[in-house]
């Protein structure tokens, strides 16, 4: 790996030594994170943690621990804090740090040769039975793995980057072309999370072929709604994403709204009408009459 910092010539020696001296395993994670921090390298620990997650996928307890570490590391770093101490990262380095993490997560990965062949056979297989194929050869992103671990938590972690105005399109253009802008993040997250096979005018339904549940998608739409309202994100005009957000925000509550309405109705009917003054009685009766067909 090439480090673009002046300091690297001094720092590389002790860190290599440290990395070799430390035994491999999840217990040493924090040590390696600290060692890489000396090199101002924040993305390698994340890659290492994700690699460990893949190799230990069978062990549930290790996966839970790693999941926590990965999400906490992302969240802390994007909030400008060192993991696991929570001490603030020096001001001059914050932007660089966040950029490293975001680049690592949102970088488009070319599909491996194994995935290519798998996709090719899929296409052939589905050509026979006529089912539509998803673009299996679309670039994948590391963020997908995190989202599949825990969508809501990952979105929370990414939200820290959305609170930083330096990643908005106006500021980012003046900084450097390496900065991952908010718009880019939204594009990637939408491509990964939103099941476009679902109609836009309804909330996401169950789709076994889609890796994310309706709940995950709802979490994403809420996330989008929050940042659109804050003015951080602006969707392009004519984007059907906004329609999806509206459908989604108003969907789940339909059930509860209906039950509460019937409850009001029942309450109004069961109220004892004894010795009610005439005006109130009339309005009460009128209320009962208008509500009655709704029951």
């Amino acid at each position, binding site marked *: 790996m090439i480090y673009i910092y002046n300091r690297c010539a001094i720092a590389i020696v002790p860190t290599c030594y440290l990395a070799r001296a430390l035994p491999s395993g999840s217990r040493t994670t924090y040590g390696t994170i600290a060692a890489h921090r000396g090199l101002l390298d924040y993305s390698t620990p994340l890659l290492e943690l994700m690699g460990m997650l893949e190799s230990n996928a069978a062990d549930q307890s290790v996966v839970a621990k790693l999941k926590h570490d990965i999400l906490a590391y992302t969240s802390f770093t994007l909030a400008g804090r060192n993991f696991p101490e929570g001490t603030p990262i020096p001001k001059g380095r914050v932007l660089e740090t966040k950029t490293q993490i975001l680049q690592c997560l949102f970088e488009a990965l070319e599909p491996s040769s194994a995935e290519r062949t798998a996709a090719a056979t899929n296409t052939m297989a589905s050509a026979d039975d006529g089912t539509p194929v998803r673009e299996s050869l679309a670039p994948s992103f590391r963020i997908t793995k995190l989202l599949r671990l825990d969508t809501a938590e990952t979105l929370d972690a990414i939200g820290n980057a959305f609170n930083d105005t330096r990643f908005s399109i106006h500021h980012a253009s003046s900084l450097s072309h390496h900065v991952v802008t908010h718009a880019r993040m939204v594009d990637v997250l939408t491509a990964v999370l939103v099941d476009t096979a679902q109609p836009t005018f309804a909330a996401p339904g169950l789709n076994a072929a889609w890796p994310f549940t309706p709940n995950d998608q709802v979490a994403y739409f809420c996330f989008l709604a929050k940042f659109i309202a804050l003015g951080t994100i602006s969707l392009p005009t004519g984007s059907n994403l*906004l*329609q999806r957000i*509206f459908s989604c925000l108003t969907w*789940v509550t*339909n059930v509860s709204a209906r039950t*509460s309405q019937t409850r009001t109705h029942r309450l109004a009917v069961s109220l004892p009408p004894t*010795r*009610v*003054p005439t005006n109130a009685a009339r309005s009460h009766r009128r209320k009962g009459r208008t509500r009655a067909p709704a029951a």
Partner: protein
Amino acid sequence: MLHDRTDEKAERERLLLDLVRALPSNDYDEQRVLLLAEGSGFYKVVEFFFLQRKNYDKVLAAAVSNVPPGSVKYLTHAGMSVLLS
């Protein structure tokens, strides 16, 4: 997560209200959002739309619908006499 919990409903209503407040009205189909909000009982959002249209009787209707069940006490003769005494 997606059960009919009142706090979650309130959270969604707040999100939707913030959203429609922040967006310029030609960005979305206002009538459709109004219908959706009405259907889910988001009366604050409904109120917001009718206030924008200066349709004050509808605003009042939405405000009345927004009253949580059980919070209205009907005035009885007994209650009246207590009030007057």
